[in-house]
């Protein structure tokens, strides 16, 4: 059975190499038979990777501890969901998982485009197969998931207890879908460069793929934050650790790309910029994968040196060299056909939004690699921690929040005084009023005041858009308010879905600003029966008890919570002890409301005196961070749902490109 997996990986590698060669030859010599053959080969690669994956999953479920991977990341008492998740819990499994997602996406792309984009597809196939070759080669030659132990282990070492958490089951797959999803627009970008078809067909064809990748990048980052919040026990959700930065950097550039392609679709501008952004996004996904596996940057997550680093660096360099060479080659075709007329225009706003997002990515990148650079240049390792990222990224993030309000409603080309008055008078007034009100209420936290004012400004612009659109439909079409609103969104999904996403962004911004500025923290050692006050809550320690199961033993404290004299709940923070890994972990007790989160950690238990040290956080509005994420998801679904108008636009773009470019290519 295990040999089947090894065989499938090797055959997959060989087939992928064939598919690459056939696609390049077929595309270059315009041989339809070779192109078709490469497409079929790509399906076969997918099938073989799927077989290898099933073999590994079967070995995990059959608890085959003769396999090094199974013995290292699972155990006989590990529950079923985590046994399935152990597939991506370790190095080689996660690479196999990557290859599985990549080849699955490759098959979907080939199915979608088997009758379309004949000029682009050979190079799309070639690019996707080149990526598959890299990952399959790693799996075959460097880190084989099917390595056997010299002597089968009697028992597995178990999955790291920190990973035995609900969010950790869905966080990595989500992030992988986002990372790997970026490969599809990247492949089309490379194909557009290689074939010289640099109109907006590649952008329109991959719009939904880009949104898909972006949605999962967003989700993956939020779920990662949620995991950190519940599992790490320090009351926060984001620490600017290199591993987190690796996940957020492609999100910044991907978000920039999603916005700037609108300018290309509408105005035929920023072609070069869009190309650079998507290539950069893809490079950042590979860089992120490298960062988390190479041990180059020290992270609290401390990934051991694994020997994969040099391969990833080589691969990344190859991608960069090919991308730059193609861009230089096609520079004349990437010229913009229009100029920006004025700062005060939608084009201008989008450009600033882009610069801010790239600035965020750059600052994050610089802070992440700074220790490596300072060591190379000055011979001393100098690190920057979360204060650096907060200091740099908070103002940039606030400026971005401002653009969230301005960008969607300012006029194209050149905003007139009338347009500005009509769009921004009320939102500005509301924003100022909010700021003044907060200031008058005695809150002096500078960033939070600015953030809340901007949030009010953006909310007002979004609300006015919905309100005016609905009113217009009511009077023009004579529709009832509810129907008018539904039709407004349904007929303009990209626009109003985008507003819904922005609404989610505002909620998240408010949640982040409130919870990071006004969090109350208290650490106290209590005997049974003693109480402490934290923020509006009174916590009474009732005593500790222990529980036991074959997999995990735990020490549980019972804490009664009252607010304003009224009993609210009883919380049960735990100290768990996972038996196989011989390691204690903290299980946070959480009471979440829309107003604030009460977060209790059992920090320390002294068996002799019976004293328990609690760490308690009260974080206001933090729930809005997660709710905002959900709203962003709803908005993304609206934006992604297909419309007839969009299909027509894609068909029209394809027709233009066929007419315009065919002679030039000959």
């Amino acid at each position, binding site marked *: 059975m295990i040999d089947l997996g090894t065989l499938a990986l090797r055959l997959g590698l060989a087939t992928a190499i064939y598919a690459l060669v056939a696609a390049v030859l077929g595309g270059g010599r315009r041989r339809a038979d070779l192109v078709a053959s490469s497409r079929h080969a790509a399906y076969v690669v997918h099938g073989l990777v799927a077989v290898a994956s099933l073999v590994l999953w079967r070995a995990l479920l059959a608890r085959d501890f003769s396999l*090094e991977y199974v013995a290292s990341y699972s155990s006989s008492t590990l529950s079923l969901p985590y046994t399935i998740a152990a597939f991506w819990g370790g190095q080689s499994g996660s690479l196999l998982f990557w290859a599985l997602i990549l080849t699955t996406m490759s098959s979907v792309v080939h199915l979608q485009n088997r009758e379309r984009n004949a000029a682009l597809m050979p190079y799309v196939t070639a690019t996707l197969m080149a990526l598959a070759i890299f990952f399959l080669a790693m799996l075959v030659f460097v880190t084989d998931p099917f390595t056997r132990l010299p*002597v089968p282990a009697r028992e597995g070492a178990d999955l790291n207890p920190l990973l035995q958490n609900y969010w950790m089951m869905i966080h990595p797959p989500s992030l992988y879908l986002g990372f790997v999803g970026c490969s599809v627009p990247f492949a089309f970008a490379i194909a557009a460069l290689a074939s010289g078809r640099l109109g907006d067909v590649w952008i329109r064809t991959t719009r939904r793929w880009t949104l898909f990748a972006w949605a999962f990048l967003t989700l993956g980052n939020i779920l990662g934050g949620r995991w950190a919040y519940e599992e790490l026990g320090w009351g926060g959700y984001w620490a600017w650790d290199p591993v987190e930065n690796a996940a957020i950097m492609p999100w910044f550039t991907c978000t920039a790309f999603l916005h700037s392609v609108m300018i290309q679709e509408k105005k035929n501008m920023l072609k070069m910029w869009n190309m650079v952004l998507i290539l950069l996004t893809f490079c950042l996904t590979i860089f992120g994968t490298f960062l988390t596996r190479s041990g180059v940057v020290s992270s609290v997550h*401390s990934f051991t040196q694994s020997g994969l680093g040099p391969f990833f660096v080589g691969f990344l360099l190859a991608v960069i060299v090919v991308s730059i060479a193609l861009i230089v080659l096609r520079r004349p075709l990437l010229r913009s056909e229009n100029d920006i007329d004025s700062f005060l225009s939608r084009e201008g706003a989008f450009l600033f939004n882009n610069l801010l997002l790239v*600035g965020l990515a750059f600052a994050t990148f610089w802070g992440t690699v700074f220790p490596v650079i300072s060591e190379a240049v000055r011979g001393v390792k100098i690190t920057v921690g979360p204060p650096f990222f907060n200091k740099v990224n908070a103002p940039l993030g606030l400026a971005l929040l401002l653009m969230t309000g301005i960008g969607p409603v300012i006029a194209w080309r050149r905003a007139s005084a009338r347009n500005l008055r009509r769009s921004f008078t009320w939102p500005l007034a509301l924003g100022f009023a909010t700021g003044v009100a907060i200031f008058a209420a005695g809150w002096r936290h500078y960033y939070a005041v600015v953030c809340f004012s901007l949030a009010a400004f953006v909310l007002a612009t979004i609300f006015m858009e919905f309100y005016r659109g609905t009113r217009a439909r009511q009077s023009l079409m004579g529709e009832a308010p509810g129907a008018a609103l539904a039709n407004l969104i349904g007929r303009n999904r990209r626009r109003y879905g985008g507003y819904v996403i922005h609404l989610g962004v505002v909620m998240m911004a408010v949640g982040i600003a409130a919870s990071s500025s006004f969090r109350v923290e208290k650490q106290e050692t209590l005997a049974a029966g003693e109480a402490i006050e934290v923020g509006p809550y009174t916590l009474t320690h009732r005593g500790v008890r222990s529980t036991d199961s074959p997999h995990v033993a735990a020490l549980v404290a019972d804490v009664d919570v009252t607010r304003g004299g009224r009993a609210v709940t009883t919380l049960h923070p735990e100290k768990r002890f996972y038996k196989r890994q011989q390691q204690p972990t903290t299980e946070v007790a959480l009471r979440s409301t829309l107003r604030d989160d009460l977060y209790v950690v059992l920090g320390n238990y002294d068996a002799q005196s019976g004293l328990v040290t609690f760490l308690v956080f009260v974080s206001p509005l933090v729930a809005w961070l997660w709710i905002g994420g959900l709203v962003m998801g709803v908005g993304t679904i609206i934006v992604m749902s297909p419309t007839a108008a969009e299909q027509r636009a894609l068909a029209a773009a394809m027709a233009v490109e066929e007419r315009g470019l065919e002679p030039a290519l000959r």
Partner: protein
Amino acid sequence: MTRNRRFIIGAAIIVVAVSYLVYVGIRETSVYYFTIDEFLAQGTALANEDVRVAGRVGADSVDWNPATLDLQFRLASFEEDGGVPVSYNGILPDMFAEGRDVIVEGTYAGGTLQAHTLLTSCPSKYEAEVPGT
């Protein structure tokens, strides 16, 4: 031409602003990062400096008072010899134990590292130790 120039100026302002933020951020928040061996080689030159030091918790060196949350231990080299005394007050990280790799952040004063932060490296997510048979 003037139009383009205006935009280049606009873009340059953002680039300069980002660079300035990065520059100031690094100047104000950067901390020397040493392995314990590098730290010991520097010795007293680092008196009263903020440092971040990676090392291993020395064998038989942990003195932990659960009632007061006072912790003393020796931050030893990865070969588990030599080292510098560390004092810390607070909740012990879950994975703190003798022989574990830790990162200590704090001030070096009077021959002792006064730690304000104590980080333990997770056993890696990606490479587990091969279990014994």
